[in-house]
């Protein structure tokens, strides 16, 4: 048995566990430096940051950067672009992986199921840069999609028309992520008791009734967690992809808060303003997470995250 440490004094405990505590040092040090020091750096959102004076030496300006953002003409557009992109993305992208998992679960051959999964997973391993590169190739004016549409006499400027930004962004996201996201649900369905299914068949339940009354209730807990997690990330839409998909002509719908933060902060060098906008974004995100968790708890018999 290990020595019982509960009877020792605090200092003795530390001495006893010094090796364990020493092992914590790299992780805690890195967390402190790269997670906590930037939190202190957030103070520049309330200051007129001057790199020569540092964070502490710069002059306080209170909430003026926030007011500047909230009253700027960009604010409404940015907020609505961000919300539309992520809310539509969540609504359209949430169900396909679940439906796919239910469909795969109905296959009688495990081998066929494995093979289909292997193919559907593949796009997940393509990088953002390449995905956006593929979108550009397929949907450009001389590209294959327009060639097919041309046969019906239709032509669309997918890449420069702001109206096409969101559909392209969201549908390509579903194309890439659906297979991968279904794994969690497929694994849950594998654990469903087969005797339940057989009993339902004997009772004359058809395939849709079995899915509705057996599969979906089994999936519900996972769905709830996935939904809360997705909703909690609503303000953190994949800026890496949105940024790459931006062309000078589609900015009216493709400029979202996080890409704006990057541009004003690191491209134009307006550090204080950029930090204020980023902080605003983070706050909305936390509020949303709490709100969604509350709503889900209410409709899900008190079960939240």
């Amino acid at each position, binding site marked *: 048995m290990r020595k019982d440490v509960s009877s020792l004094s605090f200092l003795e405990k530390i001495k006893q566990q010094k090796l364990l505590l020493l*092992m914590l040092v*790299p992780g*805690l040090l*890195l967390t402190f430096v790269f997670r906590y020091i930037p939190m202190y750096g957030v103070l520049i959102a309330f200051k007129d940051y001057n790199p020569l004076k540092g964070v502490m030496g710069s002059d306080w300006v209170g909430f003026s950067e926030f007011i500047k953002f909230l009253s700027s003409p960009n604010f409404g557009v940015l907020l609505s672009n961000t919300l539309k992109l992520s809310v539509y993305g969540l609504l359209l992208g949430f169900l396909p992986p679940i439906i796919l998992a239910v469909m795969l679960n109905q296959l009688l051959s495990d081998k066929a199921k494995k093979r289909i999964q292997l193919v559907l997973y*593949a796009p997940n391993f393509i990088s953002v840069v*390449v995905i956006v590169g593929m979108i550009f190739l397929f949907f450009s004016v001389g590209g294959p999609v327009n060639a097919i549409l041309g046969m019906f006499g239709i032509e669309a400027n997918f890449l420069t028309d702001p109206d096409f930004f969101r559909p392209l962004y969201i549908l390509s996201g579903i194309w890439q992520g659906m297979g991968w996201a279904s794994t969690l649900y497929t694994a849950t369905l594998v654990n469903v008791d087969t005797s339940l299914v057989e009993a339902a068949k004997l009772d004359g339940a058809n395939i849709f009734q079995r899915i509705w009354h057996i599969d979906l209730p089994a999936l519900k807990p996972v769905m709830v967690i996935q939904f809360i997690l997705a909703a909690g990330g609503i303000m953190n839409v994949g800026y890496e992809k949105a940024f790459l998909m931006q062309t000078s002509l589609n900015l009216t719908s493709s400029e979202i808060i996080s890409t704006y933060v990057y541009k004003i902060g*690191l491209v134009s060098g307006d*550090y204080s303003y950029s930090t204020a906008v980023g902080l605003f974004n983070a706050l909305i995100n936390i509020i949303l997470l709490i709100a969604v968790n509350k709503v889900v708890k209410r409709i899900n018999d008190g079960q939240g995250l």
Partner: protein
Amino acid sequence: MNTQMYTKFDKRMLIVNKILLAFLVLITVVPMGYILIASFMDPQALVSKGISFDPKDWTIEGYERVFSDKSILRGFLNSLFYSFAFAFITVAVSVMTAYPLSRKDLVGRKWVNAFLVFTMFFGGGLVPTYLLVKDLGMLNTVWAIIIPGAVNVWNIILARTYFQGIPDELVEAAVIDGANEFQIFWKIMLPLAKPIMFVLFLYAFVGQWNSYFDAMIYIKDPDLEPLQLVLRKILIQSEPAKDMIGAQAAMNEMKRIAEMIKYATIVISSLPLIVMYPFFQKYFDKGIMAGSLKG
């Protein structure tokens, strides 16, 4: 399961199901297959005729041009190094932090947990993090890519949960033999934790391999660029490296080459992961399942 139990209606629906799944597979395969075939085609023929199987329209010029410039290879090697280094550091730091936290008798365990978990909900954001990296003198060095993101609380939680599942009896024998805490960790815990370490390694590796954003803001020196930044220039900004185009190409010739190179570049850069991942499939699945557990 047996099929006898299915009614006629069910059997019909199962056929519809198969057709829909086949359609999904087609939708997934066609775009990737198109890129692969297009990479071997003359761009003019591709635009005028679409995919053609006439050998006259085929060429490997795209691949020749991509390989005539060293930027892709350099980016590839850089990415290989970044991904290995990043994954190694991530795994090392995660297990070293996770093991003590898996011990219920650790002094100050609650405080350390709170200290870590808080960072999951709140962070400094883009500019403060950038300014920190800059002040540390890490700008334009490999450190900016492999260090700041290396500690991830999620990874620590996964590893901690794994360690908690290892039975205590294994440790007790070692304690009787006089092993100290570090020896227990090194000789007993780490060998047992190989599966979770491999899962964390794979996820960190692929994540780093496919990311471009950090490198875009921290790295200015072309010699340090990871593959994804090179790809961004070619695919998104349509600015292929000089050697790929050749010395004196006319405007429209340049455009033709820039288009051709894109297909070959996508194939060269994406094929390794797509070919490799089926071999690691079961580990990726494990990661997804482990990640679904509530912290």
